[in-house]
């Protein structure tokens, strides 16, 4: 079934069409969420919210872009909203920890001693450093960079998702790499 046929059936609230949509795009949506959020449970929750949003607002999809482009847009918005909400939550948690102490401290120690991870400590450390650097990028740079590097989308596809010109996307990705480079160099020089 083509995306156009799928869209028409979704607008008609065809449950089978919805199931087909989910099966077709769940990996793509989940992967995009994971690349932005870097947490599998959060990625799953947000991916589900994306499909709920699609189910509820399919009638607003004007089919001027591809269905996958529209899905990516919803995914990015939901993921960024989740990150923004978490920023406040993390701020409150750190204030609470300051006054009350870290309730999860013992739990963390237990987890570290588990040592079931297939990855070396070096890998995990480097992952943290890179993720921190990516998270510190301005939002648009982070989105463009992540879509290009981890979701392996072309610049053209990214222009459609972010509704920007090709030059803007190229500039965003270039600046993201310059910023990442700077942050990594500063980290390792110090």
């Amino acid at each position, binding site marked *: 079934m083509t995306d156009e046929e799928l869209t028409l059936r979704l607008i008609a609230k065809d449950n089978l069409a919805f*199931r087909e949509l*989910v*099966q077709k795009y*769940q*990996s793509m949506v*989940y*992967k995009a969420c*994971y*690349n932005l959020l870097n947490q*599998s449970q959060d990625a*799953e929750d947000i*991916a*589900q919210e994306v*499909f*709920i949003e699609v*189910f509820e607002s399919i009638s607003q999809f004007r089919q001027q872009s591809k269905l996958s482009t529209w899905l990516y847009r919803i995914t990015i918005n939901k993921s960024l909203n989740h990150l923004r909400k978490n920023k406040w939550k993390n701020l409150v948690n750190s204030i609470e920890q300051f006054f009350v102490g870290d309730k999860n401290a013992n739990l963390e120690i237990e987890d570290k001693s588990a040592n079931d991870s297939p990855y070396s400590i070096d*890998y995990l450390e*480097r*992952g943290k*450093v*890179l993720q921190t650097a990516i998270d510190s990028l301005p939002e648009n740079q982070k989105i463009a960079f992540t879509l290009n*590097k*981890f979701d392996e989308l072309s610049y053209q596809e990214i222009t459609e998702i972010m509704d920007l010109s090709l030059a803007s996307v190229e500039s965003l990705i270039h600046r993201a*790499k*310059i910023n*990442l*480079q700077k942050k*990594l*160099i500063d980290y*390792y*020089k110090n």
Partner: protein
Amino acid sequence: MSNEKLREAGMNCKYINRNLIGYIERSIPIELQEDIDKHLSECLSCKSLFEEVRKTYLVFDERTIPEVNPFFYSKLEHKLRTKGQKEVQLVTELVWKLRSVAATALIFVGVSMGVIIGKSLYGSGAALSNPNRAEILQEYASEYYLTDSGEETMNALISNE
């Protein structure tokens, strides 16, 4: 300063640092790559820094993204179903709250109207502190004399008690 000028000036370490990711991704021109190759073979400090940055930058290329939960669709279906039920529940609760607010508002309006009407009918109580209180009382009392001597004032009656 542009890359060209840096290259000419021979400021190689800074030049390298500005192009590290491009070098790692092989997205810079061949001449630049060759320059960087040459410099890294000569400068231990830059080589060490380059190795650290390269390993970190490429770390996510080795990661495996977890598979989608096999129960993803059934969990989604369940969420859609319970979302509908939750919405109905929320609307019901909202209606109840609105009713309580409306009832409270009505009572408040009723009491306020009563007070306003009462004040406008009987004055603001200024009559009670009116220096001509005795006259007023006499006027009211004259309608309700309990004794035959109609000339006896209310004050006299009270004082006789």
